[in-house]
């Protein structure tokens, strides 16, 4: 008791607390926590005044310093029941601030709310209403509906309007309240008190935004208000409501378009004018004259000095643009000037408009200018620009791109912009285009080469993802490369140590692909040159290596063994070591021959290549990253094998088929394996994979993590004899002929680079490679932005006015699309049960058949619709996972040798399937689809049936005669 008196007498007031906090700025947290301790003690006091001060302080700390006060909920309820108005006020403020749906003590407030809502003191009623409007729960709303109903027609306008505003919250918590209160709410639309009317319009506006259809019958009321009211707040709401109703009922639109235009013309209030403009462009866009007027008004906004109006004008223009391009054309100077506005929001808005205008015929020009613009912009806006170009161009599987060579070069160019942070997206698109557009591969490889070869790019972490894509593309489509040797050097340059391990692994794998390609071409070349003259030696040599065949067979089931240096040593012991040494010596004497590469694959160049790889990858075979280590070892193993056989090849310039040399066969096989097409994979491909017996999908998938983790390990260089040979034999690349026009810039970079690092890239250098390269693409001289804006103006002049499609020299290349949507399936739409209930209730009231549906029937409706929702979720579920875990219908599934290493994370697969099989599968898919669609149809029907009662009601003529 003593402490209580002390607390009461010496309690800090709120003002003391605030002063204290201001004095203890540096030790604020400690001061606050100390004060909280005081409050915890004081709030338990039996003296209501002490309690109220403590609660007030706590509310202050909670509202401004984010302190948790949920623990004090019970004290709040206690104080709410105090008879003193001052206490009540503090308690209600605290409750409004801290209670939420999960606060269980709010159940205890029901009685207090009822008492205060019925109070004779209007201030108490108003306090209760305010608090109730924020913390109402379904329980509170149900219990207090009668009180709110009474207050709706309160004789005091100040209370009545608050009750009207609160009704919105009541409806959202307890839709059935509409059956009781709705009529009275509608009556308030005729209220003589302007504030009550304003509040009622506010409520109807929010209700109509959610579910416009239910409020169509009230259109005459709203129309009267629209025409009669002189209050701008009310008019804005009315216009907004008609913006929602008009699209549902054309006759209504016809009727309101005139008054709305009238307001647009005459009103002095910018807010009302803008609301009219927005309504016209969004909901009344078919009315030519109205849109014209709106565009005039938009123009006024655009040229205004007030940046707010400018911003809103641009926004309105974004809405008009798709339907009325002329509106943008009329204002294009302003739009383009806004691109260099000081306000980032305005810049963004004008960028959006520009992107809305992009089409097949102007995409190149707009992108060109925007990219130039991006180079000069600040990093943030630069990336906004790049992001919108990327998303506009890739929309609907590159719908607007005609010239993929151009687009691929653009991607390359974008990567070199200094602020570019869109690595992930560019990476994705480079690979995606590679898989989808055959004709773009040549250009892809060129662009990839330019990126790979530039050592400066490796220093920028934002570019790593792009480099990974470039490496993958170069490896996968190496047959288009002009100079694979140069490519190899680029892939193995020392600065790749700057890359993260996962990307280095891609580099190693690509180097592997390039190596296989070079060897294959070399062999092919020899075969064609030295055709038949076979020496008798060949037959002898066959018998020399009896173990070779079996070794290859062994490779099928365990390829590691073949590439294991020791194993290969054993089977080819007789290969002369002398010769190997010889060759290495000679090759060391011929510098740089590999990079000449023009007329291809001489014995020396191949030898050089092998040496280069050995030197570069040697240290990686000890890497601590398993991906890199394993891939590097695979390559090295192959090289060792080849080196032992190479001398045999040199001596006997003949038909090696019969020499029994093993490696040509290996190369052949691996080349076949690598030249299989990779295709895009549909996001819902997983759906088509039949579930194997014994696999329970709904099990806890936690255990799978281990298995999936294994999946990521490299299984490189896998090939099998079981697969049919590739349909497509890639011979010598056609690109060879045009290699003369090799780009000079990056070659010189490479030369410079070589000078720096000597002939061979020594492993010891790797660690001290410094970032001494200049940053990728130094920003060009900062030209002034106005120049560029002018540029842009010119651009749109040409490209937008040009109505005809220019004739393209090249036809648009084929873009592979998948039959069933490339996009991820759209998630099942959520059912908003409560809203359905509310609109049901509202319709019942408005159309006067309360007797038919009671709350009981609504409840059953609710549960049934819930069930429907669940059902839908279930059926849609399988389309969820995007990842493709395994190849469909591949009998070798699970056999490690049949799994090809993938450029991880790109979710595609190589299909080992005969065409006939594919066709069959397609048929099956088609059938499945049909089944599915019919199933869906059925479901849809059943839903319609279930919703029957409500729909029948709404079908009755909604708009009374006044419109007809």
């Amino acid at each position, binding site marked *: 008791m003593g402490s*209580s008196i002390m607390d009461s*007498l010496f309690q800090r007031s709120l003002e003391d607390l605030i002063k204290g906090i201001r004095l203890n700025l540096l030790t604020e947290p400690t001061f606050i926590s100390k004060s909280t301790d005081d409050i915890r003690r004081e709030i338990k006091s039996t003296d209501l005044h002490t309690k109220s001060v403590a609660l007030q302080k706590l509310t202050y700390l909670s*509202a401004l310093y984010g302190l948790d006060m949920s623990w004090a909920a019970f004290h709040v309820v206690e104080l709410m029941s105090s008879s003193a108005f001052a206490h009540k*006020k503090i308690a209600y403020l605290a409750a409004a601030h801290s209670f939420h749906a999960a606060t269980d003590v709010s159940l205890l407030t029901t009685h207090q709310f009822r008492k205060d809502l019925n109070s004779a003191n209007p201030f108490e009623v108003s306090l209760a209403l305010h608090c109730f409007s924020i913390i109402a729960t379904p329980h509170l709303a149900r219990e207090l509906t009668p009180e709110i109903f009474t207050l709706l027609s309160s004789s005091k306008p100040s209370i009545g309007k608050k009750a009207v505003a609160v009704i919105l919250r009541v409806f959202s918590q307890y839709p059935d309240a509409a059956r009781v209160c709705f009529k009275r709410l509608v009556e308030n639309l005729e209220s003589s008190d302007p504030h009550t009317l304003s509040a009622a319009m506010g409520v109807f506006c*929010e209700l109509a935004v959610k579910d416009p259809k239910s409020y169509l019958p009230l259109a005459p009321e709203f129309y009267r208000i629209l025409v009669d009211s002189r209050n701008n707040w009310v008019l804005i709401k009315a216009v907004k409501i008609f913006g929602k109703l008009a699209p549902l009922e054309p006759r209504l639109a016809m009727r309101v378009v005139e008054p709305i235009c009238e307001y647009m013309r005459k009103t002095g209030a910018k807010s009302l004018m803008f*609301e009219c403009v927005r309504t016209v462009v969004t909901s009344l866009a078919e009315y030519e004259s109205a849109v014209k007027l709106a565009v005039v008004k938009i123009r006024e906004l655009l040229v205004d000095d007030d940046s*707010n109006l400018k911003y809103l004008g641009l926004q309105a223009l974004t809405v008009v643009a798709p339907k009325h391009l002329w509106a943008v054309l009329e204002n294009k100077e302003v739009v383009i000037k806004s691109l260099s506005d000081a306000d980032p929001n305005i810049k963004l808005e004008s960028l959006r408009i520009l992107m809305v205008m992009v089409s097949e015929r102007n995409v190149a020009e707009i992108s060109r200018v925007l990219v130039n613009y991006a180079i000069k912009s600040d990093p943030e806006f630069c990336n906004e620009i790049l992001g919108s170009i990327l998303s506009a161009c890739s929309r609907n599987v590159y719908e607007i791109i005609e010239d993929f060579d151009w687009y691929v070069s653009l991607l390359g160019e974008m990567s070199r912009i200094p602020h570019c942070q869109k690595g992930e997206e560019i990476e994705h698109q480079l690979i995606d285009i590679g898989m989808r557009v055959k004709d773009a591969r040549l250009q892809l490889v060129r662009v990839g080469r330019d990126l790979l070869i530039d050592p400066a790019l490796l220093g920028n972490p934002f570019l790593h993802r792009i480099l990974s894509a470039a490496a993958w593309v170069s490896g996968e489509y190496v047959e288009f490369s002009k100079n694979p040797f140069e490519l190899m050097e680029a892939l193995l340059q020392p600065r790749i140590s700057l890359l993260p391990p996962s990307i280095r692994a891609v580099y190693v794998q690509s180097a592997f692909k390039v190596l296989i390609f070079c060897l294959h071409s070399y062999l092919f070349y020899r075969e064609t040159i030295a055709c038949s003259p076979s020496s008798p030696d060949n037959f002898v040599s066959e018998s020399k290596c009896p173990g070779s065949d079996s070794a290859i067979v062994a490779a099928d089931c365990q390829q590691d063994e073949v590439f294991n240096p020791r194993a290969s040593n054993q089977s080819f012991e007789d290969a002369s070591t002398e010769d190997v040494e010889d060759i290495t010596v000679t090759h060391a004497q011929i510098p740089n021959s590999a990079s000449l590469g023009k007329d291809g694959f001489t014995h020396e160049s191949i030898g050089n290549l092998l040496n280069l790889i050995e030197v570069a990858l040697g240290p990686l075979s000890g890497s601590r990253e398993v991906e890199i280590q394993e891939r590097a070892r695979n390559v090295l193993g192959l090289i060792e094998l080849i080196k032992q056989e190479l001398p045999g090849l040199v001596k006997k310039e003949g038909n090696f088929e019969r020499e029994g040399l093993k490696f040509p066969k290996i190369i052949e096989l691996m080349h076949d394996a690598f030249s299989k097409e990779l295709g895009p994979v549909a996001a819902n491909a997983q759906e088509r994979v039949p579930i194997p017996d014994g696999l329970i999908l709904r099990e806890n998938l936690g255990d799978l993590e281990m298995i999936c983790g294994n999946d990521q390990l490299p299984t490189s260089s896998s090939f099998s004899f079981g697969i049919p040979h590739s349909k497509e034999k890639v011979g010598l690349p056609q690109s060879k002929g045009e290699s003369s026009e090799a780009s000079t810039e990056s070659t010189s970079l490479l030369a410079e680079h070589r000078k720096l690092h000597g002939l061979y890239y020594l492993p010891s250098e790797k660690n001290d490679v410094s970032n001494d390269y200049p940053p990728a693409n130094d920003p060009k001289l900062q030209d002034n932005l106005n120049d560029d804006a002018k540029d842009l103006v010119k651009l749109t002049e040409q490209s937008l006015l040009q109505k005809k499609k220019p004739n393209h020299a090249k036809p648009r290349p084929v873009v592979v699309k998948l039959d069933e949507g490339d996009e991820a399936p759209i998630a099942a739409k959520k059912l908003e049960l409560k809203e359905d209930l509310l609109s049901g209730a509202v319709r019942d009231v408005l159309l006067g058949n309360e007797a038919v549906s009671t709350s009981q029937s609504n409840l059953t409706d609710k549960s049934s619709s819930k069930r429907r929702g669940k059902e839908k979720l279930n059926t849609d579920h399988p389309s969820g996972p995007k990842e493709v875990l395994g190849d469909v219908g591949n009998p070798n599934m699970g056999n490690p040798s049949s799994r090809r290493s993938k450029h991880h994370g790109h979710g595609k697969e190589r299909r080992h399937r005969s065409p006939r099989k594919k066709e069959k599968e397609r048929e099956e898919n088609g059938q499945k689809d049909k089944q599915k669609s019919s199933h869906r149809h059925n479901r849809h029907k059943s839903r319609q049936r279930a919703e029957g009662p409500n729909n029948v009601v709404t079908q009755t003529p909604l708009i009374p005669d006044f419109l007809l």
Partner: protein
Amino acid sequence: MRSRAAINPKFGIVLKVMIHFVLLISRQGKVRLTKWYSPYSQKERTKVIRELSGVILTRGPKLCNFVEWRGYKVVYKRYASLYFCMCIDQDDNELEVLEIIHHFVEILDRYFGSVCELDLIFNFHKAYYVLDELLIAGELQESSKKTVARLIAAQDSLVETAKEEASSISNIIAQATK
């Protein structure tokens, strides 16, 4: 333009209000008033305040008063050292909200007599009651400055009488010796 209702995943309540919350933030980033009309947990509130003050306080003068944020729009205006922010849906009327903010400032000005930040710091609860007369359930409810001033004054006198009663020494002693 899409309309988005405030959906709080935790409680699953779908609410449609015009103004989701009101924030007063000083130029130094100190919070001076917070009022939430849509349900946000304490954690979300802190996060919202941090995010928004980061966005708004860094914007220079003469830029537009609207910020797009998490699919909503925040309308803000600076008066002296205070930023008044209100969060609305994408398709609500920004200019109208600017007017509401101005109206709020005018009422505060009238009530405190040329209001300054210190008034709001030391009369934090009063600022709430003024705001309550202006907005209810996230909707504008009163457009006359005079009426608001009259209502607030009447409430104040009610509170004062109650306070005097409660804080008298005799009352405290009576309480303690009960």
